[in-house]
């Protein structure tokens, strides 16, 4: 096998071996590695599996100390014994997305055809491609129907795509802080991030790995700009106000005088240690291309006669994926009389609220899953 030994926790499998994965861009990909992590145990009937889909810069380390950053998993609050995604009851699966940089094939992996990192020769992937790859994983695990598929932000896009593409493979779908399409404003923010990366001379036309350089400056700026969109003005003001960073007076220079500047710089610097710049380009592109209506004719048509039980959740202060986006999906689901719940959670924490301690959100998610378990006849294991 040409792949280097996998040194991260979790699993890594080869997919697309017998039959290559046909991507939206026309490329047939395979065999390719896919890395995933699981928590809890799959029951004998294989009916208790929940696929968690991570967001743009998330990864498969949902509920454990992150192997690279040493920080808690991104959904540690949500996943574990007795938590809403109760690992005593459910089998939690999370795969690093196609195009990612923590074990699944992406631009930083070695192209078996050339023996060099893919770089920009990696095919452009879509949310649907990510979902198709995840379906191969679910097939590999022998799971006929996921009990639930869920995720926030880009994870919500994947959850919606799962429900639209494979309605019989999903009992319930929980798109959180998401949308059926990426808005013009969100594409615009992504473009700023991509241009920042590509403007960094160390990016080297995407071949930085061959040159032994890294576009850390550009990637950090991309992260800083994006991070602002994940918060809210209220949250920023509460956290930082106009407070100065380790100083009593303004310096009349361009140091990080303000705490908010220092915070953003820290966000940028720590991000580049764990994330690949080209992955950032590819995954933001996948989000930009996401538009269920474009593929299915309309959002309602994507869910015609769907048996899936939906629960959409949005947050009042999320301006990146505002409540109106979720509500549009709900209206489309109503138009086909789908079984849908929709909860808007009061929070001033912005888009990132889905990652943070929001008791109302946790109660709603736990309640929805309990209700689904009752309807599916899923007993506690």
């Amino acid at each position, binding site marked *: 096998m040409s792949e280097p030994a996998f040194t991260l926790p979790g699993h890594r499998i080869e997919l697309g071996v017998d039959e290559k994965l046909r991507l939206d861009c026309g490329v047939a990909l395979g065999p390719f590695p896919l890395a995933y992590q699981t928590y809890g145990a799959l029951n004998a009937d294989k009916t208790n599996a929940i696929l968690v889909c991570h967001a743009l810069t998330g990864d498969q380390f949902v509920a454990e100390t992150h192997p690279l950053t040493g920080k808690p998993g991104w959904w540690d609050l949500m996943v574990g014994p007795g938590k809403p995604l109760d690992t005593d009851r459910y089998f939690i699966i999370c795969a690093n997305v196609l195009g990612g940089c923590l074990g699944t094939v992406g631009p930083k992996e070695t192209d078996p055809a050339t023996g060099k990192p893919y770089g920009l020769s990696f095919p452009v992937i879509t949310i649907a491609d990510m979902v198709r790859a995840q379906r191969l994983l679910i097939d590999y695990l022998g799971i006929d129907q996921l009990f639930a598929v869920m995720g926030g932000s880009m994870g919500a896009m994947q959850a919606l795509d799962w429900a639209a593409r494979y309605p019989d493979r999903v009992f319930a779908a929980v798109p959180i802080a998401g949308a059926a399409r990426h808005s013009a404003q969100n594409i615009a923010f992504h473009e700023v991030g991509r241009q920042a990366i590509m403007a960094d001379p160390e990016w080297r036309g995407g071949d930085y790995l061959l040159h032994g350089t890294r576009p850390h400056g550009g990637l950090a700026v991309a992260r800083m700009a994006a991070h602002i969109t994940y918060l809210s003005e209220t949250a920023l003001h509460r956290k930082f106000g106009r407070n100065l960073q380790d100083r009593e007076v303004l310096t009349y220079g361009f140091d990080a005088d303000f705490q908010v500047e220092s915070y953003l710089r820290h966000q940028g610097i720590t991000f580049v240690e764990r994330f690949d710049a080209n992955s950032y380009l590819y995954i933001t592109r996948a989000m930009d291309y996401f538009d269920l209506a474009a593929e299915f004719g309309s959002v309602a048509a994507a869910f015609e006669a769907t048996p899936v039980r939906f629960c959409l959740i949005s947050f009042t202060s999320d301006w990146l994926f505002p409540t109106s986006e979720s509500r549009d999906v*709900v209206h489309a689901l*109503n138009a*086909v*009389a789908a*079984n849908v*719940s929709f909860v808007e959670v009061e929070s001033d924490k912005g888009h990132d609220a889905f990652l943070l301690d929001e008791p109302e959100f946790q109660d*709603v998610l*736990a*309640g929805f899953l309990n209700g689904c378990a009752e309807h599916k006849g899923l007993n506690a294991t």
Partner: protein
Amino acid sequence: MNGTTSSIRVDLQLIAEMVAPGSRVLDVGCGDGALLQHLWKTKGVDGRGIELSQAGVNACVRNGLSAIQGDADTDLKNYPSDAFDYVILSQTLQATHNPRTVLDHMARIGKRSIVSFPNFGYWRVRFSLLFGGRMPVTENLPHQWYDTPNIHFCTIRDFVVLGREMNLQVERGLALNGGGRPLGLDPAGALANILAEQAVFLLQRS
């Protein structure tokens, strides 16, 4: 009577009795989901709720019920025709902006509609206005005229006449007292219009 049955309001129990087991139900103005929960537990009903208050919706979903935040006046138009066996509107008709449009949509979306509402022809109401000269405030209608969410009151007779105009056939009707217990009167009769504090009707397109 088991605990689940006795824990919900009497008028909700009467509505539940009109619903066939295993059917599909849309509860418009479902509150915290008491009726939906009761229908699911006792009749295996596949229920959905629409509720104006976010707190009510969240309570429903926390309890494993399907519900969305929405408004009877604006959101019923999104639903396809014949999507449900029953559409229920319990004590909400008088709070809608366009009761006739709401009833129209209910009749379109559901094979049957169930509507309960307070009777403005109730003798105490008439008495209050006639002799007190004030807008009536009763136990079931506790609001003052200036802060009431109830903007389209009707009497039972008004409702029956509108139903006739809309070609809605009354399959069952119950005239109820303030506690929600049936009075045993002809619901379309003159006596019910005076003695009943509220009413429930099961309607079908004719």
